């Protein structure tokens, strides 16, 4: 059974069961992933999965399922259980309705490249190219992952929305080492092969690793910090998630009751741009069948909107943002960020170093955890190259540092951004971010001393 037939039958069956509204989606994804470590391929993985999801509504009641089994019998069985569960569930907080279609979906240009799904032997060549580039910059070994994906999504709702999406992407992240304490990361991701540059990613990883040689333990204190795109992408992934009405509803956001307020420096404009030509996750419609759009979340420091689904609009007000996907969690169908974009600044990267004067340049991080999601107190560990800057130049490589600060304060303390931007997506940054380098003032740095 093809995806179109599955969504047709799922919507029809849901209504027959007595649901007031039904949204069905089928995602077919074919992926390949080549992993390498110590300059040797460790495994190549491939997936071919067809996954229906269904979301049903009736009189302030909602239910949903993800069924990793493309058989219609399996889906119907699940839907029967869902409807029975809705029948015995007490009503939820608000009544919501799916967006009323039909809608016209404008395709997003440059998000499909037929060459990408066909690659097998070429993956090995591309990974090798990245590793060689890292070695040429002084790296002694590299690890990483190269992923290709082809995704087709079919969506239909009982509210008259129906459409489909198709996209490809290719993504490489490479981590180069000179020794255990000296490493750097590079990244390249694109929807078309012509925009993919594994050599540049490898060279970037190798160069940072080489610069990071012979690190000394850094000192605790407050620093003016130049954040590289990878580390700020990890932060902004979380910030965009906090800007979903779902996170606000769970109490896991410092953006609650802040619409219209200044939540960041005027230098920061943060957008979820699902219409961006060539955008990694760009698409035409969400899984409630609503057309995607370019949503400005933070406009020159002011929080303009949460990312919404139909349920969150009913609960919190505001307008739909084309952000609803069946993600599980506690809502099932929930708003998510897909393509996070930061508007560029006015400086060259070199000029940003000059502006730092004395401070730190941090290239990457991992393991960000919050003590309190509503106040934004958190810490995160620096990873890969970290450098002390003196008089605008790298003075020495440092290690053992932890950023221990408050995320709203960091957003308020952005003072400069670079003109150049790049896409970042890797293991710690699952939602791709297109962003520049940024300077942040008075960043709290701590480290273990025993």
């Amino acid at each position, binding site marked *: 059974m093809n995806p179109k037939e599955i969504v047709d039958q799922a919507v029809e069956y849901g209504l027959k069961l007595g649901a007031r509204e039904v949204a069905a989606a089928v995602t077919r994804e074919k992926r390949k992933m080549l992993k390498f470590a110590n*300059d040797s391929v460790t495994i190549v993985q491939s997936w071919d999965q067809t996954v229906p999801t269904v979301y049903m509504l009736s009189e302030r009641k909602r239910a949903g399922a993800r069924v990793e089994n493309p058989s219609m019998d399996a889906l119907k069985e699940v839907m029967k259980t869902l409807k029975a569960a809705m029948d015995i*569930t007490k009503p939820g907080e608000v009544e919501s309705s799916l967006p009323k279609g039909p809608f016209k979906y404008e395709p997003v240009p440059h998000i499909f490249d037929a060459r990408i799904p066909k690659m*097998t032997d070429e993956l090995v060549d591309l990974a090798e190219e990245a590793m060689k580039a890292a070695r040429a910059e002084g790296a002694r070994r590299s690890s990483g992952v190269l992923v290709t994906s082809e995704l087709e999504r079919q969506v239909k709702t009982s509210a008259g929305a129906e459409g489909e999406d198709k996209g490809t992407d290719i993504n490489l992240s490479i981590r180069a080492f000179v020794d255990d304490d000296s490493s750097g990361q590079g990244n390249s991701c694109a929807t078309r092969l012509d925009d993919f540059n594994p050599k540049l990613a490898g060279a970037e990883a190798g160069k940072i690793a080489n610069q990071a040689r012979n690190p000394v333990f850094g000192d605790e204190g407050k620093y003016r910090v130049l954040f590289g795109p990878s580390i700020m992408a990890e932060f902004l992934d979380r910030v965009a998630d906090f800007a979903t009405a779902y996170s606000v509803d769970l109490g896991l956001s410092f953006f609650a009751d802040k619409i219209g307020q200044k939540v960041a420096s005027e230098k920061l404009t943060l957008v979820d741009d699902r219409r961006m030509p060539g955008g990694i996750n760009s698409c035409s419609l969400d899984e409630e069948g609503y057309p995607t759009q370019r949503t400005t979340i933070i406009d020159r420091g002011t929080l303009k909107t949460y990312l919404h689904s139909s349920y969150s609009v009913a609960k919190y007000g505001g307008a739909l943002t084309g952000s609803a996907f069946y993600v599980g969690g*506690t809502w099932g169908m929930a708003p998510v960020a897909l393509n996070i974009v930061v508007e560029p600044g006015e400086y060259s990267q070199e000029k940003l170093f000059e502006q730092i004067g004395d401070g730190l340049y941090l290239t990457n991080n991992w393991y960000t955890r919050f003590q*309190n999601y509503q106040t934004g107190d958190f810490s995160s560990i620096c990873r890969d190259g970290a450098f002390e800057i003196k008089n605008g130049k790298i003075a020495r490589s440092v290690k053992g540092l932890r950023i221990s600060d408050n995320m709203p304060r960091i957003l308020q303390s952005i003072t400069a951004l670079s003109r150049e931007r790049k896409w970042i997506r890797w293991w710690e940054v699952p939602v791709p971010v297109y962003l520049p380098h940024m300077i942040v003032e008075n960043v709290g740095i701590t480290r273990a001393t025993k």
Partner: protein
Amino acid sequence: MEDLVQHAIEAASAKGVQYAEARLHIDSGSGVTLTNGKPEPVQLAKAKGIAVRVLVDGALGFASTNDLSKESLDETVDIAYRTAKASKRLVTKPVRLSKEKAEHANWETKAREPLLDVAIEEKLVVLEEIEKNLSPSVVKVDLPSRTLVLIDDISDRYFADTDGSKIHGVASRIGLLFIFTASEPGKGIIQRIGQKGETGGWERLEAWDLPKYVADEAKILGKILREAKQAPRGELDLVLGSEVTGIACHESCGHPQEADRILGREAAQAGESYLKPDMIGHRIGTEAVTVVDDPTVPNSYGFYEYDEEGVRAGRRTLIKNGVIAGFLQNRETAAELGVSSNGAARAVSYDREPIIRMANTFMLPGEYNDEELVEDVSKGVFIKTFMEWNIDDRRYNQRYVGLEAYLIENGQITSTVRNPILEITTPGFYGSVDAVGKTVEYEAATCGKGEPEQGAPVWHGGPPIRLRKVRLGG
């Protein structure tokens, strides 16, 4: 199940692979949620699919699909084979697998009341009973945001490989997640995210006494808000509750002793390890410290009898009396390090490769009761629970920020303190432990590792422990 798996194995064998395994899953789960007393959508998750892993001239290929037609299976095997073969050119260190005993087994977690027999309505009643106990009149604090999630899943798996293993296993798990925001006028807000989880059936809830357990968690938040003073800083003695001991054992003992990290296979994702293969026998802590990982603890969240490479699971000693005693191994790392696998290969679903994971990681108990742990501390802090934590990707530099914490003065636990921060190295942590409590408790958690990400159910735990002369700061 057996036919499809056997078909995949035979199709792979026909291609002349060195080794092949296939694993078919039929997984089923449900989740019910109350947010601020109102039901959220009931959710179901079903999955049925197969994974094939082959070794071709030292290159590993893995492929997975949820189309279980014979044609699709053949294509899946072919992709695993072709991609492995294509990658051979860039395999500078050929993969070998340790030789292990072929196993024929059938195992199942015991469930007196099978989860499949429990109606959604019954699950909602459990949450409503908890919710009733969370009113401000009961817990003495306002909880403006509270989410309760009851989750369960059953994973039915069949594994076979070309070495002759055939294993059928069924694990059923049940868990509760809660997310609380507590506020007190003029005192600010604090948050707590907690989890319980076990293998077994519906009967596991009886022992949890969830209405009391969750209400107690809420009450303590009010106490912290009303009473907690600033935590002291500087060098002092520290007593850590089981929850903090457990997270430390997981993060700075379990993870760095995963052999795949030690050998660099996860370098670009979860990272490497401060340990090297030749560091078995290296002292990392005091004599008081012994840490194990044990998948066979009855009803534990990380329970399994055989891993996803068909190896029988058993207790692994990671640190014995302060000395690195062993690593977590799968068949690949075991072959490279010249040892046997200790059954640590886990895959969370049909579309994930088996990688080295912890199961239930905990410090073994010592001889101290709770009073003895604090009685000769003149000035210190007792950190019972935590909220924020992290550790660097070589598992050397860790941080735990306390949530429920108390001052210790002259051998007595006195006032409540807020957000004490312990930032310490791994040898600094284990090398400071001078006393270990008698009573082990466990916490359920979902551990993340691998690419694509695999969230594995685990327990971590241990007894309360005492650390001498560590720096509390922030």
